[in-house]
């Protein structure tokens, strides 16, 4: 079992001085994930908050090799890097024992939506890479538009809560399950607040031979509209309400990594976030019931899958 003491003694690969918002969940995830291997890492980062806030020329917050090419192609960019590594090892231009890890990072916009095809393709082709989606449920970098990861009922700038329509009327796409359906060696869902779980999952993802996918819930104070000190509390509530169950699919086998002692009602997760505030109006309360129903069903299904 890894201890924080050990992690703290390691060097940051994403360093201070970045321009991410105060209270942002992304660097917390990166801090843990980038320590889950001691091998050098080459990163391909999709356009998004992390990319923009860590690479403003002439500054860079990356101590490790990092590349950005476009929004929808982090997976194909890293696939190219990995393909070149394989070619150069085979041709003897890179020593066989030089191990390098290949990591693609995207937000939910760059992963669930515009980058999905590239991710699906790279996973199917079996490149040896890890893809991390920092899922903050919204296009945060462009000012809070709805994505396929925006949950039912949330108000986003392109699914705003109005007097007729109370926010986003569709359920989120379950990308973790979709990636599991690719039959790749490792898929997991994690949360920054459960740092050890996140660390273990990142470690497994780096260690497997072939593609691995991590979907990590990422609190965003700006777009979820909560007090910036509360990010980790809210991430925890997502796990305790089973809105964001923590589980993994290893070679097709499902395993739930966290069962809340007491499964909390979704209202606990909705309440502190401004993006759900409109749901508490009398005329919209039916939607809270819908959300609860949908979360319960998904949680039941996941438990059934874990028992298979």
């Amino acid at each position: 079992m890894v201890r924080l003491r050990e992690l703290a003694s390691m060097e940051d690969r994403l360093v201070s001085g970045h321009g991410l918002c105060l209270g942002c969940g992304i660097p917390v995830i990166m801090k843990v994930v980038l320590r889950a291997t001691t091998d050098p890492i080459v990163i391909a980062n999709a356009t998004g908050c992390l990319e923009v806030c860590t690479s403003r020329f002439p500054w860079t917050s990356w101590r490790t090799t990092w590349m950005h090419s476009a929004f929808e192609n982090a997976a194909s960019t890293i696939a190219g890097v990995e393909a070149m590594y394989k070619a150069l090892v085979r041709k003897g231009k890179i020593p066989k024992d030089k191990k390098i890890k290949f990591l693609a990072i995207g937000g939910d916009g760059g992963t669930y939506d515009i980058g999905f095809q590239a991710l699906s393709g790279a996973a199917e082709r079996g490149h040896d890479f890890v893809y991390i989606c920092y899922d903050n449920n919204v296009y945060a970098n462009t000012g809070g538009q709805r994505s396929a990861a925006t949950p039912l009922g949330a108000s986003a700038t392109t699914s705003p809560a109005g007097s007729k329509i109370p926010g986003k009327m569709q359920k989120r796409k379950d990308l973790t399950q979709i990636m599991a359906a690719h039959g790749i060696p490792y898929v997991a869902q994690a949360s920054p607040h459960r740092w050890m779980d996140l660390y273990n999952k990142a470690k497994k993802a780096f260690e497997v031979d072939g593609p691995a996918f991590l979907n990590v819930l990422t609190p965003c104070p700006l777009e979820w509209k909560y007090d910036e000190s509360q990010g980790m509390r809210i991430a925890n509530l997502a796990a305790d309400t089973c809105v964001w169950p923590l589980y993994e699919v290893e070679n097709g086998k499902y395993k739930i990594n966290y069962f809340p002692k007491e499964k909390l009602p979704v209202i606990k997760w909705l309440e502190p976030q401004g993006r759900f505030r409109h749901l508490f109006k009398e005329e919209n309360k039916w939607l809270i019931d819908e959300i609860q129903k949908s979360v319960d069903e998904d949680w039941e299904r996941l438990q059934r899958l874990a028992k298979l």
Partner: protein
Amino acid sequence: MSKIVTLNGNMAIAEAIRQINPDVVAAYPITPSTSIVETVAQYVADGLIDSEFVCPESEHSAMSVCIGAAAAGGRVTTATASQGLALMWEMLYIAAGLRLPIVAAIVNRALSAPINIHGDHSDTMGARDSGWIQIYSENAQEAYDNFIQAFRIAEHPDVRTPVMVTFDGFIISHSLETMKIEDDEAVKKFVGEYSPVYPLLDTDNPITVGPIDFTDFYFEHKVNQLEGIENAPKVIEEVGKEFGKRFGREYGFFEEYRMDDAEVAILLMSSAAGTAKETVDELRAQGKKVGLIKLRVFRPFPARKLAETLSRLKAVAVLDRATSPGAEGAPLFVETRSALFDYPERPKIINYVYGLGGRDITPEHFHQVYRKLEKIASTGKVDQYYGYLNLRE
């Protein structure tokens, strides 16, 4: 040993890829470039080359894989056409902006709509400002020769800019031709070893590539990028000469065909030059002072050199196999006319669009153009500067 063989354009490119054995080939199938990709896949399957062959799920990803692979630090190539090139469009700019010396074979094919699989230049003309060097080929031999030279040009330390080598769909890609394939070792030697610049895989020297620039750096980075293509003419010339020395076929920016004492000429690119040359020969036999210029390098555009050659003529017809909707003529015409602007002595100049969607162009059409040029030369008058060849009007 070099050998005379019968190949089509796609097979000639596949041969060059076999000889060069690039580190990564990433390509998506599309008519009419598919057989390049299939042949390379077979070479890999048969162990003739040890390239890493990637079959991405789209052309957008194919170019993205090329970009990742080239940034990683090795030699990369791809092939595509038409809609495929259009889907790569976003990534073409990024490949050029990151100064990655990717070489692409583009089999020219019309763009939709309506969908059409035959040759015209609307695909590569759409990419003319993407920052790539563009070299057009008349036949399979030229496609092969240009493709080999392209690596030297793209990878030259002063250039470090991606290159697309193009040839006409079906007319060249699928027509058999007797041509010369050079000796494997000689080609390998000509292309040389790849030396990477800022490779990502050199993880001991970590770098950040593809940053975000605000208003304080974007302009400088763009001008820094342009330096590569601005340095290209010297290198294109040197490489074309050296190729001539090694293999007996020398290349420049354009080919002048019977231009010595010509008074009127046609300027065009790619496969139509073959038919045009026959017409020139016929007219020359009749004592007419006609000539042909076949442009090879469209980007960087050899404006001064071309204008110097054209300025001594009385009339020139520029034949474009693409349109530029809403512009003062098609792309090659606009560039050429602009190049002539600074010359006090300059020819009358007209523009024809031909061959869209693979429409034939025959000697009769070239006769028609030369007749028109002779009339302009004798009267000094242009009644209509823009028209179409072989269109039902």
